[in-house]
């Protein structure tokens, strides 16, 4: 069997998820024995229109990017959304919250806001534009999980991605719960699999892996009251990474 041809493409993002691929270190060398990278602008000069697996990093912000993504989809057998920008829209989706995008552009770009390359529409996750076969969650992605997903793919099986809250990972790490410090943590409604690095470093979970199925937002309301926080506090927290997700229900 010939090695699958893999191409990595980036859209609007910080390229931190690609960096995690580099951060696989020795494992990246192992990976390279099984795949043939044919395009990866950040790491190599070659490019190709022939690939089996397309890995998409970043969110889709412009019409021209949508077209490019559709073209990539039509060429790839398997498409992987890499990281929160691609899976959810990521922090970029905060821009969708602005009442008037033109105002925003002015605020950042001044008079140049009318330049054609700045013509942006609503920020979209990859799956809002084309069908996605696999999602690697997180901001940034977890390099171990990425390796696992790729190995499953190479073995022809479906990866098992957790569908339970970050609290499970967090307890496994024996971190003190952020709620005990009076902080709002999105761990109870966020999909695990990251290993809960945030609470372990003294930071609340800000939900970068998206919600679990059936997150209990009502439960969260009650907890907010107990900790003298408001639902608005919670919503603001959730907005950081989860503006893109449909309003979950209990």
């Amino acid at each position, binding site marked *: 069997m010939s090695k699958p041809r893999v191409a990595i493409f980036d859209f609007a993002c910080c390229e931190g998820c690609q960096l995690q691929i580099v951060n696989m270190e020795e494992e990246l060398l*192992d990976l390279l024995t099984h795949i043939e990278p044919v395009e990866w602008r950040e790491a190599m000069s070659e490019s190709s229109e022939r690939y089996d697996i397309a890995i998409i990093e970043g969110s889709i912000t412009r019409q021209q990017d949508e077209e490019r993504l559709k073209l990539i989809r039509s060429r790839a057998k398997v498409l992987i959304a890499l990281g929160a920008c691609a899976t959810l829209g990521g922090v970029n989706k905060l821009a969708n919250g602005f009442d008037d995008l033109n105002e925003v552009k002015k605020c950042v770009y001044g008079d140049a806001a009318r330049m054609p390359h700045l013509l942006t529409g609503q920020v979209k996750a990859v799956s809002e534009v084309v069908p996605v076969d696999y999602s690697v969650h997180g901001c940034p992605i977890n390099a171990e999980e990425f390796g696992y997903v790729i190995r499953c793919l190479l073995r022809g099986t479906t990866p098992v991605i957790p*569908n339970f*809250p970050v*609290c*499970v990972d967090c*307890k496994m790490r*024996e971190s003190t719960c952020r709620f005990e410090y009076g902080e709002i943590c999105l761990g*109870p*409604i966020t999909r695990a699999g990251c290993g809960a690095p945030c609470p372990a470093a003294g930071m609340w979970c800000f939900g970068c892996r998206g919600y679990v199925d059936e997150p209990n937002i009502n*439960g969260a309301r009650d907890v907010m009251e107990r900790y003298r926080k408001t639902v608005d506090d919670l919503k603001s927290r959730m907005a950081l990474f989860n503006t893109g997700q449909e309003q979950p229900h209990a």
Partner: protein
Amino acid sequence: MPIVKYITTDQLLVWVNALIAAQTVYGVQAKEQRFAYDALADAADLRLDFDVTILPPKKFFQPLVETIMKFHVDGHYESVTSEEPFIIFGVHPYDVVAIAQMDEVFRANYADTHYLSRRERATIVACDIQNASPSMFAACMGTATVEDGFDILLTKIGDGYVVDVRTAKGEALLVALGDAPDADAGTLARREQFWDDARRFLNKYLLKCKPTDLPALLEDQYEHAIWEHNAGLCYSCGSCNMVCPTCYCFDVQDEVDWTLEKGTRVRKWDSCMLRDFATVAGGHNFRRRREERYRHRFYRKGQYLWQRMGQIACVGCGRCTTACTAKIANPVELYNTLMEG
């Protein structure tokens, strides 16, 4: 002949350091504002005044993520069991009781060699409770003190510790202690008094019935409104299970390495509170509703395991109460509510 010594705190430090030099010692240490078991590098880090650890000592016998075998895709499997001896320093009585219960679970019907080999290689240095955890009800559950299930029991009396050695494994550790006097009658009397108090007072919450009444209590309360009410707040986050010393459910997964030919079969802690715990391929979920899962946990603790092995699967450590952000996991509050009818 039982050996009961009395040592000073300084002697304890020297002893523990000597043990550390010889083998792996896990001990209770401060972790942020809480406590956790971890490999001890220095006796000074040992905190026998802890209230409760975040995770129970179970993690040493059933590791959170445990490789149980290696395989090759050509169909070759090889069992992986741990052979390393180790000491756990500072196990509270309620956890000693829980460990005994886990021993039974993993020994029953089909003996689990992975658990048992770790268990056999462990020396348990138990330690009486100096500070009660914020949610504890060990006295109610009869687990505030313990008679057996450990190799050595330490009890802080005055400025030193009574070292009560019960097994040959325990005696082996004494070599590193060197000379120490036997505990005198006065000290032992004070220990009796300490135990008496512990059995009566080590509670932050009071269960209004005897633990042995729980199976009968639950028998009639399957449809109680509390299940649905509390479950409305439940995140299905599994925290209550993860921290519990008598929960042992697990998931098993195969992971291949980068050869794509070799790999390991690992088991990981799992939790019956999680949404997909009882979901089968094709999507049918045998415990789909939150309240079904929430209720299951309490029945398992208070009735199901009792039916199977005659023990209540709750030792009153209060870990779940603390771990639950929704504040609905407290067994005492729950059972007391059921008692009100």
